[in-house]
């Protein structure tokens, strides 16, 4: 990978710095913040799907664990929000690590089934434990106090998520271009070849699965505090599919594609809000058309067209 991939990061940071001056009102500010939060989640998921070539159809479940840890623990037990966030991430990491080993001995359809099942079980649990979670109606989340002041204004939130996004992009780029990242991409390219050069493939799949699950959990916590309210929809199957769609449309194995995918598909429901029901049709059509006509996704396809590959 060449140095030039980091130019993208500089451009991103520049955009993030000037963007607030061009955001006309609170509606768009909210939209941009949600785009950035989704972008971080999708980055983590893309490491798993795009780079390592493993699918997860249950990632919203992990997001849900983080979100509900941030809602339930401070509300019912008086935990500090940061502690609750950490606990959510730890539980998610442990759960992911626990199920990952048997899951990643499976391939393809079985892997899809297992992750999907896990996500659905998490969602059903959230829906049913109404005493703690408020059931299908959801529950409010206390605001996040950091270093003495409450994060309540959207402006402050903007800078927090912009910083999180920049760090995530930087860390992802670093990771991909390292011995760890090469091993991940190699096991996607050829499992047998990577094993023969010494890559313990199950270990690497487990590691990236746990990492991306923890990413999702942390950002679930951030979402919960930002929105101030959580509902089980955060953790449902459709949201898992939405996240996968973002990866696919932006571009599998493309860091900047993850951001583009998150931006587009976060905006889409707004654009389609007046057409009740068409949202689902649009998501489905995008998934199919993308896979058939542009299987590499938007960013890699455009990059190839304009002669400059991302890698």
């Amino acid at each position, binding site marked *: 990978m060449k140095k030039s991939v980091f130019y993208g990061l500089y451009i991103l940071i520049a955009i993030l710095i000037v963007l607030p001056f061009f955001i006309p009102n609170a509606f768009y500010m909210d939209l941009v913040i949600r785009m950035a939060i989704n972008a971080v989640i999708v980055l983590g998921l893309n490491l798993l*799907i795009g780079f390592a070539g493993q699918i997860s159809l249950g990632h919203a479940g992990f997001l849900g664990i983080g979100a509900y840890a941030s809602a339930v623990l401070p509300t019912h037990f008086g935990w500090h929000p940061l502690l609750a966030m950490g606990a959510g991430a730890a539980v998610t990491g442990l759960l992911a690590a626990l199920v990952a080993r048997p899951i990643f001995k499976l391939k393809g359809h079985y892997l899809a089934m297992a992750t999907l099942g896990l996500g*659905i079980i998490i969602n059903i*649990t959230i829906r*049913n434990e109404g005493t703690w979670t408020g059931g299908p109606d959801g529950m409010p989340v206390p605001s996040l106090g950091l270093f003495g002041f409450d994060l309540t204004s959207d402006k402050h939130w903007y800078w927090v998520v912009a910083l999180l996004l920049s760090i995530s992009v930087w860390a992802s780029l670093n990771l991909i271009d390292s011995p760890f990242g090469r091993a991940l991409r190699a096991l996607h390219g050829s499992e047998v070849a990577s094993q023969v050069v010494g890559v313990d493939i199950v270990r690497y799949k487990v590691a990236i699965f746990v990492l991306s699950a923890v990413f999702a959990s942390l950002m679930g916590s951030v979402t919960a505090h930002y929105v101030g309210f959580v509902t089980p929809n955060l953790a449902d199957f459709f949201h898992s599919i939405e996240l996968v769609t973002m990866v696919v449309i932006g571009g599998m194995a493309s860091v900047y594609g993850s951001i583009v995918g998150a931006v587009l598909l976060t905006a889409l429901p707004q654009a389609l809000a007046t057409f009740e029901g068409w949202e689902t049709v649009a998501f*489905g*059509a995008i998934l199919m058309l993308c896979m058939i006509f542009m*299987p590499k996704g938007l960013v890699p396809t455009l990059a190839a067209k304009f002669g400059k590959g991302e890698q």
Partner: protein
Amino acid sequence: MLAEFLQFLFSGLTVGATYALAALGFTLIYNASNVINFAQGEFIMLGGMLAVFFTMSGLPLPVALVLAIIVPAIIGVLVEKLAIEPVKGAETVTLIIITIGASLVIRGLVQVWLGKNTHSLPAFSGDEPIHILGATLLPQSLWVLGVTALVVIALWYFFSRTLQGKAMLATSFNRTAAELVGINTGWVLFMSFAMSAALGALGGILVTPITLTSYDVGIMLGLKGFVAAVVGGLGNGLGAVVGGLLVGILEAMGAGYISSSYKDAIPFVLILLILFFMPRGLFGGKSTDRV
């Protein structure tokens, strides 16, 4: 005690038969193309919803039911022609995403067209329950079980006694070899998508008088059908039927004896346990793909 147990068993068998039909649909397509059709559940929904729509628009019940099977079969073939065939030989992840896309399109269109309401069909032969040892059995359950049994027998006959059926089996064992002996594998693909959509729709129609239907029932029914197919060992037809009934019974027992609010979680707990401890399903099936 016994009455309660029988009651759970009846309801488990009834819903299990629907899972079995869906699982057979998964199995047919998987054998013909190695694709797991995540849109399978939408055909169950289509069957029920179309039957409701056609009867409401004044068609006599038998005509409505036949149409509610034929239309999904045509849609199944369209999915295969328009979305699966163009990406022949693609990665598993790609195929999974495409069929999920197809499922969202079907569901969304039905939502836009027929709305979000829950619908029902009149039971085929009345609602007068039959009493057996203190438990009650709806006549419609007998329809579900009876038709499922007939379908299983018909499929068995088709695959073991007819040339077309044998051609489909041959293709599932070895596609290249099947092509070499002159089997039109394109036709096999066509047939398997049509048949599996029809099976799903049939299940959806049969069970609608009992469980009701709406635009969004497909996902859960389909996923549980997939669980049933994996429990039975993916690719194993008889396994799919047994898996379907097993998933239905365990779900009903779990809902009855443990917690009805976790009813929907039971098949997924089951599938995780099976995948962890016996990844080839209860009845062996095709091996998990290895290098």
